[in-house]
């Protein structure tokens, strides 16, 4: 091939290549404009040759593009634009008149310096490649990735909830088994306490009989020979019979009180755990307060003064064992908040006489004058595993379990607290169980947070 043929061939390639090719001189006048540019701009080379690019295409970003082209003339280096940052330089129609998808042809552009023999850049050649298809694929990919990211995020959230639910389930099972154990122990103690009580009754009667008998002997003491009478008198004095007779009554009375106390504790324990009756039933929240208080009394008795402010609201439909668990949590927490000494106020309401119509909701409050909870901690106290207690002393589950129990009762648990002043937790429960409460209480325990479909989605088809 001679040089002429070479040039012809090159001319043909520049003209017919499916790439826009134009060249401009330092005054931004067009010197080359290939067929791709003609076709897409609707302007032929003859009308473009010698024209200032910016006058022919006023929509071009002139200030920026001038700088860019000037820097190619100045530095003699390549320069580029990418459709990702700048979708197009020339607004051309895209190659999808039917299927669409974008507003205009996406373009990658290259600015290349054309030097003369002395190395001075005389022209800048601009090539334009159509990247519409790539852009569309990229668009789809990005959308698909966003969807899968969102799914992953959801799965992570679900997993977290599942873990929380598992932990709470474990905690509530633990509490339930402790309750069962306590109830079993209570039952075992009940029998001996029963026969001790009964024996004590007999013993009291026998003692009365015995003292009556002794008194009767004493009334006939003057008939004894003087030496015998003196011996009896001395024996009586030595044994301090008069004191024994007085003290016997007190001993019996105190023992009976002690046994009564034991019986009450056993009753409260049984009441608290409710192993015998675990379903929904009407319950008096003030009684629940009292029996729970007895169960945790040992924890509180040395530091807390208990103030009761009861207004005798109506009974509420609830699962008493669970409500007792919540009250116990609140009482124990209040005790921890007190530190050395303080006051815990138990309040119930509303007072039915002050409410017009039927009472729809009942509330109970546990208020302490302890250390209080900071505002940022208040946001987190119902989160599973959140605890301010030292490692090993708190599971951080008490309030989150409580929160879920109250939620499943269709109620609310609110806190107001001021650091250094004290904290008040208020439980509000509907008098009648709502349908929502029904629905959640049907699902297996605390895993109720996660629906079966969600669980399936988590486990995946392979059960991983």
């Amino acid at each position: 091939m001679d040089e002429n043929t070479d040039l012809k061939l090159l001319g043909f390639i520049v003209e017919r290549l499916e790439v826009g090719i134009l060249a401009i001189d330092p005054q931004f006048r067009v010197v080359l404009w290939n067929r791709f540019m003609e076709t897409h701009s609707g302007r032929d080379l003859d009308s473009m040759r010698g024209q200032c690019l910016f006058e022919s295409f006023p929509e071009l970003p002139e200030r920026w593009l001038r700088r860019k082209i000037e820097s190619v003339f100045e530095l003699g280096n390549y320069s580029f634009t990418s459709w990702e940052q700048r979708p197009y330089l020339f607004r051309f129609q895209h190659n999808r008149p039917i299927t669409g998808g974008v507003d205009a042809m996406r373009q990658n552009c290259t600015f290349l310096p054309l030097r003369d023999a002395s190395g001075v850049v005389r022209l800048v050649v601009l090539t334009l490649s159509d990247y519409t298809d790539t852009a569309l694929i990229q668009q789809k990919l990005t959308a698909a990735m966003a969807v899968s990211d969102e799914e992953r995020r959801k799965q992570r959230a679900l997993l977290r909830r599942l873990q929380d639910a598992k932990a709470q389930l474990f905690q509530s099972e633990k509490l339930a088994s402790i309750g069962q154990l306590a109830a079993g122990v209570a039952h075992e103690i009940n029998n001996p306490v029963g026969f001790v009580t009964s024996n004590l009754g007999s013993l009291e009667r026998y003692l009365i009989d015995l003292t009556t008998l002794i008194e009767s002997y004493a009334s006939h003491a003057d008939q004894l020979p003087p030496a015998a009478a003196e011996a009896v008198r001395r024996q009586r004095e030595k044994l301090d019979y008069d004191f024994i007779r007085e003290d016997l009554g007190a001993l019996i009375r105190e023992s009976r009180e002690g046994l009564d106390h034991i019986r009450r504790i056993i009753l409260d324990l049984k009441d608290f755990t409710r192993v015998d009756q675990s379903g929904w039933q009407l319950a008096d929240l003030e009684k629940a307060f009292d029996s729970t208080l007895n169960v945790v009394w040992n924890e509180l008795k040395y530091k807390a003064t208990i103030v009761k402010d009861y207004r005798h609201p109506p009974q509420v439909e609830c699962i008493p064992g669970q409500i007792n668990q919540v009250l116990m949590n609140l009482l124990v927490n209040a005790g921890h908040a007190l530190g050395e000494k303080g006051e815990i106020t138990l309040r119930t309401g509303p007072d039915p006489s002050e409410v017009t119509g039927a009472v729809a909701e009942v509330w109970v409050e546990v208020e302490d004058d302890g250390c209080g909870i900071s505002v940022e901690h208040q946001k987190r106290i119902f989160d599973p595993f959140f605890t301010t207690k030292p490692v090993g002393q708190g599971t951080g589950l008490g309030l989150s379990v409580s929160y879920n129990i109250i939620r499943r009762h269709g109620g609310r648990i609110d806190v107001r607290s001021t650091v250094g002043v004290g904290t008040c937790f208020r439980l509000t429960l509907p008098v009648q169980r709502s349908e929502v409460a029904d629905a959640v209480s049907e699902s297996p325990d605390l895993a109720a947070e996660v629906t079966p479909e969600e669980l399936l989605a988590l486990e995946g088809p392979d059960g991983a």
Partner: protein
Amino acid sequence: MSTAGASPAPAGFAAAGSAAPASATTAPANLSEDQTAALQEIANIGMGQAGDSIARIWKQFVALSVPRIALVESGRIPTLIHHFVGDARVSAARQAFHGAMRGEVLVVIGRGNRDQLGELMGYDGQLDLGEEQEMLLDIANVLGGACIGGIARQLGADVGFSAPSLIGTDLDSHAVVRPEELCVSTALCVEVCFTIESNQLSAHLIALMPREELVNLAQLLDRFLCNL
């Protein structure tokens, strides 16, 4: 309009060809002491010219550091970038060069005043994300082209550039290069820092060439030395 000022080399960054035994660097087997000295000189001149051109097109005073040259184990590159750039959040782009010299240029840019820089480069008003990225790519292209182009010209080598691509904006400087992405064990590293004082903008240019490519560079340097 450009100045060059010496800055201390970070720990573990010894000049190539020097005898300093540092764990991160190995003596460049493929570059002799003469070749390394020549490369340093060429880089000094090349970067100086690049600084001049950049100052001309941006019409700003550009200060630049003395180029630092070393052979670096690739595992050390992320640490090295952190050494150069510090703890600040950065934006970064890469650009490949090919031909008689082959490698990649990383350009790492601190926050600076972007809108002012945008104004300088012909953008109107506040930059949107696309414009900011495009500007970053353009800066990388200009710096990469000027510096590698400057070195190549002195060596009489023909070097081409592919389009720059974005690494990211608002990155931790450790995250510019992840060691697991690197496919070479050792690379020749040329670092220079440009500062546009009016914008409080500093850009680090880090040119990396795989050790295997140094045979070509060594030949070019020998030719350069013969022609002196």
